[in-house]
């Protein structure tokens, strides 16, 4: 994101405070049953105060009414603050969405015959020409050309990236700027439906619909609310009877009943619920991940299996030369020399790593292939080897079976010891490349995958969280086994094809598991569409981005782990605050019950364990605590309860201790403190 917004900046707080009042509209409150009950209660007590018909002193009724309204305002404030951060981010994004003039092509092949149209007039399927220095007018796919593009407006990453036709880097995003060269782009999104538009809509929460789990929790909260509604409403006839039976005191007043009801219903979680959800989306955005729905964020917490591409995620980019193993009668230096010669003109990362390794290990300088008079023999699918010809010297490197054919064709013999070297390397998970000069095999180069540092610990962490990791690789089984063991993944899929990947996902899903994966290529698209949580790399193709339900702007596949944690954190925050909210009720009973029936049954004062000063101070303290706790928990709701990668049992024990036991103890202290304060004042 171009601008990261601070958690609570002054402007956001100001605007949120204002919006809290706007949201007092009952039509807004109606959507949240818990808070709507508070709204009705507040209105009722206010009316009693206006009518002056309360049994209690007018100042007491007014104080209760005011604090009830504050309860709603505080909940509104929490939601507005959460939304405010999104709105500020959306405003920043909107700044990058300018209507630019586009060079529209009537024929993509003739890029010189364009005419200027406004970017907003472009439709899906149009072709545009974007020369250096211009802004890409909309989302699209590069059909011709290659260029460096500045995508910092979207990703916040200042280093330019290459976009080119064909392959996995063909997608361009509207609002990014071409820095060099030119592109012909086929527009893939109508105005208003572009990636930027979707992003703005998401961060604003404009299309935020409640997630399945949030709905289930709302039902539970509504149930609690109803139970307490029954419990408090029936208290009226009970107390009427009690007063008559005891022959003293009066029935409990409506004001006290409303106060009791509001204290008992889960207003803490009810008031913070939507803020928690919005903040969860927000944390994703902070991690530079755009989720297309809250449902996807929630599902991330449930993931059981992570499919990770080997290359780039588990291992560093490409394989690198790690050793030279000469055959008998050949020195290491001679092998290194031949290997370097054969790789000089090889521009693949593997080829380059051989040259670099020869230089580092054997001090062999890079030689200029032209001055040697050498002729490069490139790799072909037919010969499956590459090398150089220098006069009579013919040096080749390649897969063992290809070299065997080549050597035997020249009347040479492929030595058994080279075969065993090759096999030993393959067993280690390395890729062996045989080097030969003419009919003579000189030895073997060992190419190795380098497993990323710290990845093994990360996987162990995932295992403790109950998530299985599966490595996906195009390598053969032998190689895959070795790397899997080194990286510490639970399982792997070797010789993976797009179909095999899709099949693997379906198999796991049939067993009831939830799958997360990331991908960038067009051939990943079917698997991404099938996976439950699918993170597409922003650098990837349009097809991949459309198939996924999240886009990682940093294009960092390891981030899948972070996605899972954010999802879990969201659910944990909801669960913990629900527990806290319900546990709070115990103390509130001890405050209100003796106070409510003080006139009828003074003996009940034995339950006043907090020794609250007077019945009215007790009731007021409970109401004030109930309102203030919402404000006190806003930072926690926004930041989320910390997630630790430990087993479910340990996690539950910890959260129960903090939020369950804490939820019972804290209000006893809080209500007592408030009582002391208001009695003193």
């Amino acid at each position: 994101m171009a601008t990261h917004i601070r958690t609570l900046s002054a402007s956001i707080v100001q605007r949120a405070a204002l919006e809290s009042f706007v949201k007092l509209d009952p039509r807004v409150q109606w959507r949240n049953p818990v808070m709507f009950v508070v709204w009705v209660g507040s209105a009722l007590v206010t009316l009693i105060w206006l009518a002056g018909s309360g049994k209690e002193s007018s100042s007491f009724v007014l104080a209760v009414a005011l604090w009830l309204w504050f309860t709603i305002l505080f909940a509104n404030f929490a939601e507005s603050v959460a939304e405010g951060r999104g709105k500020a981010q959306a405003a920043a994004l909107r700044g990058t969405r300018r209507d630019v003039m586009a060079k529209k092509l009537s024929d993509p092949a003739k890029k010189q015959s364009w005419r200027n149209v406004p970017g907003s007039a472009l439709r899906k399927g149009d072709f545009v020409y974007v020369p250096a220095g211009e802004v890409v007018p909309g989302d699209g796919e590069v059909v011709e050309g290659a260029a460096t593009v500045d995508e910092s407006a979207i990703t916040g990453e200042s280093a330019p990236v290459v976009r080119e036709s064909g392959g996995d880097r063909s997608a361009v995003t509207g609002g990014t700027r071409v820095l060099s060269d030119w592109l012909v782009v086929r527009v893939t999104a109508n105005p208003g439906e572009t990636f930027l538009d979707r992003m703005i809509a998401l961060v604003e929460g404009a299309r935020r619909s409640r997630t399945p789990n949030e709905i289930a929790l709302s039902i539970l909260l509504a149930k609690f609310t109803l139970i307490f509604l029954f419990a408090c409403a029936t208290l009226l006839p009970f107390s009427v009877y009690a007063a008559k039976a005891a022959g003293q005191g009066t029935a409990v007043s409506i004001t006290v009943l409303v106060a009791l009801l509001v204290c008992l219903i889960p207003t803490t979680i009810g008031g913070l619920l939507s803020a928690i959800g919005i903040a969860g989306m927000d944390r994703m955005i902070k991690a530079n991940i755009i989720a297309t729905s809250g449902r996807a964020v929630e599902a991330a917490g449930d993931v059981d299996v992570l499919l990770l591409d080997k290359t780039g995620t588990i291992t560093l980019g490409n394989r690198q030369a790690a050793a030279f193993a000469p055959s008998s009668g050949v020195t290491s230096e001679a092998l290194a020399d031949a290997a370097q010669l054969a790789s000089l003109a090889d521009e693949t990362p593997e080829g380059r790593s051989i040259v670099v390794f020869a230089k580092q290990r054997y001090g062999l300088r890079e030689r200029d292939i032209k001055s040697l008079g050498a002729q490069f023999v490139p790799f072909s699918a037919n010969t499956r080897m590459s090398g150089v010809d220098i006069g009579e010297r013919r040096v080749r490197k390649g897969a063992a079976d290809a070299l065997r054919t080549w050597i035997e064709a020249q009347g040479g013999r492929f030595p058994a010891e080279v075969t065993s070297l090759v096999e030993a390397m393959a067993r280690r998970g390395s890729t062996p490349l045989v080097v030969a000069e003419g009919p003579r095999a000189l030895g073997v180069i060992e190419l190795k995958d380098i497993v990323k540092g710290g990845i093994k610990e990360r996987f162990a962490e995932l295992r403790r969280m109950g998530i299985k990791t599966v490595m996906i690789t195009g390598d053969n089984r032998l190689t895959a086994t070795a790397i899997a063991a080194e990286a510490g993944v639970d399982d792997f899929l070797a010789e993976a094809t797009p179909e095999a990947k899709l099949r693997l996902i379906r198999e796991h899903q049939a067993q009831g598991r939830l799958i997360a994966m990331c991908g960038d290529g067009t051939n990943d698209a079917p698997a991404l569409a099938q996976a439950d949580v699918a993170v597409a790399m922003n650098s990837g193709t349009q097809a991949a981005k459309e198939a996924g339900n999240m886009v990682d702007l940093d294009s960092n596949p390891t981030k899948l782990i972070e996605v899972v944690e954010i999802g879990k954190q969201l659910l944990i925050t909801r669960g913990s605050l629900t527990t806290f909210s319900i546990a709070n009720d115990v103390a509130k009973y001890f405050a209100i019950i003796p106070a409510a029936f003080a006139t009828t049954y003074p003996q009940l004062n034995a339950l006043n364990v907090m020794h609250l000063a007077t019945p009215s101070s007790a009731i007021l303290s409970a109401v004030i605590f109930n309102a203030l706790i919402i404000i006190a928990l806003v930072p926690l709701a926004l930041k989320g309860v910390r997630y630790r990668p430990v087993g479910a049992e340990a996690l539950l024990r910890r959260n129960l201790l903090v939020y369950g036991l804490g939820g019972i103890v804290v209000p006893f202290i809080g209500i007592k403190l408030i009582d002391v304060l208001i009695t003193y004042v």
Partner: protein
Amino acid sequence: MNALLQCAIYLGVLLLLVKPLGAYMADVYEGRHRFLAPLENLVYRAAGVRAEEEMDWKRYLWGVLWFNLIGFAAVYALQRLQHLLPLNPQNFGAVSADSSFNTAVSFISNTNWQGYGGESTMSYLTQMLGLSVQNFFSAATGMAVLIALTRGFARKQTNGIGNVWADLTRTTLYILLPLSLLLAGALVTQGGVQTFAPYKTVDLVQQPLEFEQEGKQLSTREQTLPLGPAASQIAIKQLGSNGGGFFNVNSAHPYENPTPLSNFLEMLSILLIPGALCYTFGRMVGDTRQGWALLAAMTVVFVGFLAVCVLSEQAGNPLLGIEQNMEGKEVRFGITDSAIWAAATTAASNGSVNAMHDSFTPLGGLAPLALIQLGEIIFGGVGSGLYGMLVFAIVAVFIAGLMVGRTPEYLGKKIESFEMKMASLAVLFPFAVVLIGTGIAVLVEPGKAGIANPGAHGFAEILYGFSSAGNNNGSAFAGLSANTPFYNTALGIAMWISRYWLIVPVLAIAGSLARKKLVPASPGTLPTHTPLFIAFLVGTILILGALTFVPALALGPIVEHLQLWSR
């Protein structure tokens, strides 16, 4: 010490029997025991049902409802027409409409609340064909619904949750009948009566007895001893968590419960099937640890309330200056056995009594009352107790599951908004029925008219009555005169709502669970068999129950206790 020993023996024997009986019942429901196949098939043929056919939850539900509706019609008709029917040696007249309605609902809903006095109202035919039969069928209904829910957990991606006719028939033939025969036989050896002979008139031991009636001094030399086919009905009343006694004073009556041994057997039978069903559940879902965990949660709560009850009764009444409260208790049982019975009969939705709960100390009476108000899930009724407990487990799992960062799942089934909706309804209805019913009764004149004692105790009587009916328990604080049109109707409705409006959501959950995939467990899955989860489940039950009823209890037994001890 003696009390501790008695409680320990009781629980020990009970828990020892859980596994063998539980395993046997699992075998019955999974069709491994078919030794009565000819008889079973005869029933199916006679009723014209196909027992192998799988039913989805809606068909299963309709089966349950029709079966119970017909039961209702039969019991109602028998009472209204008993003066025209045979086996009526005392020539009792037709039972009043409101009482018949109340009793019919009471017996089909496994509540067995008795507004009437059995020996002075019901003919032998009504008792046997109406009440005894429903003792079996209402118990079988509860167990069938539980088994359907169990199948919902055990199965995956299917609509079928079993066949209601097969479940009802097998429950009755293989489980309830054999156990009842055993118990009835044992009771007869202890002196329980089982006869069709008319009531006997015999001479008093101490005579003459002088008493006052309508201001006149009277004396008598003889008494009437009620008789009847009692032992057989008592057996199923205890085993099937029915509780409807043959005689008015229920198992305090020497013909129902003659000796300490018969008392022990009857107490044991109260919790026997509900406890063993936990093991059956564990077996059927393929993880017996889950069943033991639920049983552990039940036992923990039970022991807690039992302790409150025993200690309060032992503490006696400070006003009378006596150290033990023997009021309303039979001397042949004493305090501990009366307290165990009171706790067991209210923990399970049995409702039979061997002492009068109305005469307990305030806290001693609070224990049974609270056990009922928790929703009859601590052991609970046969079948209904465990399915109620499972509903609470679903709620607990939902909150706990969120706290470990996953969409909550129980036994491999994801708990989503549909389950939450149904579980909420199932918890909500009984709570609402009790509170609203009591609220109405203390407001209206016919409600207040039934109260025997003034003040907080009178309130407790009404609260107890609606708690008992609204959770299908059936026991009573004896003080309340409930055989009035108002109470017969109000309590009848309460019993009806809390039984059937619970079965509907429970079967809906069963259907929805059966359709779901089974998620394999991983270290990230919340384990639901550990002490931590058991503690959390107990906490959820207690907090939910306490939060709902504390205000009401504060105005009843709690304030009564404080008044008693502060004087």
